[in-house]
């Protein structure tokens, strides 16, 4: 089952798609019975988000692209709640920067607490999945506590949605194709089969030293193919079975800067 969280007519609603499979058609049925078009609502991240983990360099091709050798331990960093954004949202590109890019990623949502969970049981702790777009502004990269928050923890830099998709609906999360499009042009392509650290490994790794809770989410990293985006660009991230997450880049002027 897929579900969304949206703001509509003065309240926040749980909503489900009218269409039975992910498609361009995103009309919604709200929990209270009303049927609304995708454009009529404000899409929020599709679940109550707890701790946000993100992976650096978790696809061999992307690590090569950045000229960094394959890591021995998952390169995990954390993101704060202020960065979260829903489907069809707008992300600011600061004036004067040279390289801001999207990252299409599979997001894994924890469904029940996980502490010292072995690989073999790890997927039992997964509630579902969604598409994530994890933006970075590389101009701000410094060599202190990388990737530093000014690169990765910016307002609107963590886009989640459109749907929360039940784990039961995804037969094999380890063979999902990912694609990103900028203004309709395919720019990034990959498959979760190429993850260096797969989902069970990541849950085993994290839960070995910390407790994962319901709503925590792991953004599993991005394959090669990140390109610069500029104001006005429409970025769409797609993952097999999870739908298409759309986001627009805006200039400082739209944010009163």
């Amino acid at each position: 089952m897929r579900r969304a969280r949206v703001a509509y007519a003065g309240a926040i609603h749980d909503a489900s798609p009218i269409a039975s499979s992910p498609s361009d058609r995103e009309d919604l049925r709200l929990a209270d019975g009303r049927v609304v078009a995708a454009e009529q609502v404000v899409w929020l991240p599709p679940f109550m988000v707890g701790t946000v983990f993100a992976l650096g360099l978790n696809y061999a091709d992307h690590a090569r692209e950045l000229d960094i050798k394959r890591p021995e331990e998952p390169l995990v960093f954390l993101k704060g709640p202020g960065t979260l954004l829903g489907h069809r949202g707008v992300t600011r590109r600061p004036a004067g920067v040279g390289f801001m890019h999207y990252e299409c990623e599979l997001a894994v949502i924890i469904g029940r607490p996980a502490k010292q969970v072995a690989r073999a049981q790890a997927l039992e702790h997964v509630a579902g999945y969604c598409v994530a777009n994890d933006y970075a502004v590389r101009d701000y990269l410094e060599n202190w506590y990388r990737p530093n928050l000014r690169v990765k923890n910016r307002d609107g830099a963590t886009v989640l949605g459109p749907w929360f998709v039940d784990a039961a609906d995804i037969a094999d999360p380890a063979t999902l194709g990912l694609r990103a499009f900028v203004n309709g042009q395919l720019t990034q392509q990959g498959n979760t089969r190429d993850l260096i650290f797969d989902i069970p490994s990541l849950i085993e790794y994290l839960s070995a030293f910390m407790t994962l809770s319901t709503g925590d989410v792991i953004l599993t990293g991005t394959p090669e193919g990140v390109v610069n985006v500029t104001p006005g660009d429409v970025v769409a991230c797609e993952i097999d079975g999870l739908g298409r997450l759309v986001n627009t880049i805006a200039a400082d002027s739209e944010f009163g800067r």
Partner: protein
Amino acid sequence: MLAGADLFSIPFDVPPYRLSGAVYGTLLNHRSALAALGPAVHQPPYHAPPNAPVLFIKPRNTLARSGDVVRIPVGTPELEVGACLGVVIGRTACKVPEPRALDYVAGYLIVADVSVPHASYHRPSIRFKARDGFCPLGPTVTARAAVVDPDALMIRSYLDGVLVHIASTADLIRPAARLLADITEFMTLAPGDVLALGAAGPAPRVRSGQTSRIDIDGLGSLSNPFMDAAA
């Protein structure tokens, strides 16, 4: 005990002091902490001193109260406790100008940034700082109005009652208002978010069986016993 789940029962869970659960920390913001690195700041892998604030996140599983036991992981002889002044945000802070930054503060508390000691600031694993219970904070939130000058507070660290470290917020490279201005330029802070302003160096180290206590002028004491995880 599992700290994160208890966050919402702490005594300061009363508006306007309700914590959101988001805790941001700052490193190398105390002159002594940056000075301790010496010429290394100019050498690989850093190449240059930090430009933007050096920030990190303490996730919700790390949050703990005064009195909670901090567990020392197996194979780790001691933990480091960075004693910090923490700012509690009172209203949405986005691109706040430095002269008005403190208007966005609801109050202050003590933050103990507990870490597995690690030498590198380059790309450290989150397993050093993000373990369960590694961020005791409190003992309560003291209202902003009760703190005359957040840039002139003494921070005292004690081990089993013995004073082992003393620092002042007067020695912060970016004082509270400046740090809030620089951070909210790119990330909005929400009511209840906590920003720890940064510990002095070298941070005291604590072994199993010892109790760490941090006192900050006017904010009370944050006290936590440390025990081996296996004990």
